[in-house]
C-alpha cells in the first residue's frame, strides 16, 4: 500500500518536473511589483502630474519615461533570474534545461513583438497607448507560457489582458492600470505563490 502510494507520487512528480519550470519564485514577483510601483510613481510625480514643473521638451520627457520603464524591466528580470537560480540550486536542479529554453522562447515572441510595438508608439509621441499595449502583450506572453510553469501564471496573464483592455478604454488613466497590472498584481500573485510553493519547503 505504502509503495503504491509512493509510486504514484513519484510518477506525478516526474511528469511535472520534466515538463514544467518550477524554479520560479514568488519573491521575484513581489519585488518586481514593488519596483514597478516605484517606477510608475516616479513617472507620475516627476513628469505626468504637472508637466509645467519641469522644462523638458516632449522628446526628453519620452526618453526619461523610456529609461524609467527600461530600468524597471531590467531590475524585474534580474530578480526573476536571481530567485529562480537560488531556488533551483536549493533543489539541486539546473536552471537551464529544455523546459527553460522552451519557456523563454514562448515568452519572448509576444513580449518582444509587444515591446517593439510599444516603442513605435512611444517614439511617435503616442504615449497614452503604451500602458495598454505593454499590459496586453505581457498578458498574452504569460498565458502563452503558463503551460510550462505554475498554473497561477495563466490567471495572472488573463488579469493583465483585462487591465490592458481597460487601459485602452480609459486611455487617459493608463498609468493607473499600468500600476495595478505591473505593480499590485505582481505583488498579490507573488505573495500567493510564495506562500503556496516556497514557504512550506
Amino acid at each position: 500500500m505504502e509503495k503504491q502510494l509512493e509510486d504514484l507520487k513519484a510518477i506525478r512528480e516526474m511528469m511535472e518536473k520534466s515538463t514544467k519550470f518550477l524554479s520560479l519564485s514568488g519573491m521575484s514577483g513581489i519585488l518586481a511589483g514593488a519596483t514597478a510601483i516605484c517606477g510608475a510613481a516616479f513617472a507620475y510625480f516627476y513628469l505626468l502630474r504637472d508637466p509645467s514643473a519641469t522644462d523638458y521638451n516632449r522628446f526628453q520627457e519620452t526618453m526619461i519615461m523610456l529609461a524609467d520603464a527600461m530600468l524597471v524591466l531590467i531590475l524585474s528580470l534580474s530578480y526573476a533570474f536571481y530567485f529562480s537560480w537560488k531556488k533551483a540550486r536549493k533543489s539541486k536542479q539546473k536552471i537551464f534545461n529544455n523546459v527553460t529554453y522552451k519557456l523563454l522562447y514562448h515568452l519572448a515572441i509576444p513580449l518582444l513583438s509587444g515591446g517593439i510595438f510599444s516603442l513605435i508608439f512611444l517614439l511617435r509621441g503616442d504615449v497614452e497607448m503604451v500602458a495598454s499595449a505593454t499590459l496586453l502583450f505581457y498578458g498574452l506572453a504569460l498565458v502563452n507560457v503558463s503551460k510550462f510553469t505554475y498554473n497561477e501564471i495563466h490567471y495572472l496573464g488573463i488579469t493583465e489582458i483585462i487591465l490592458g483592455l481597460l487601459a485602452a478604454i480609459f486611455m487617459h488613466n493608463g498609468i493607473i492600470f499600468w500600476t495595478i497590472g505591473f505593480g499590485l498584481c505582481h505583488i498579490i500573485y507573488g505573495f500567493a505563490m510564495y506562500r503556496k510553493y516556497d514557504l512550506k519547503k
Partner: protein
Amino acid sequence: MKNIIANLNKAFESRIRLGIMSVLMVNDTVDFNTLKELLDATDGNLASHLKALESLDYIISTKQFIGRKPNTQYAITALGKERFVEHLNALEEFLK
C-alpha cells in the same frame, strides 16, 4: 485482490523505470543526459534500465550525433504507453 496484483507490471517495479516511463509519457523525446539529471541516476544504472525497457519494446531509442558527441534520444512506444496506463490504473485500483 489477486487480479489487481496481476495487473501491476513487474517491468515497472523499479523507481528508475517508473521515472523513465513517466517522463516519456509527457515528452515526445528525451535524451539520455536529461533523463539522467531528472532521475538523479548514474550512467550505468540508467543505461541498464533503458535497455531493459527497450528490449520489452516499451521504448525506442535513436542515436544521432550533435557535433562529435553521440546523443541518444528516447521515446515511448504505443505498446509502452498502453502498458504504463494499465500499470497506473492498477496502482490506483490498489489504493481504492
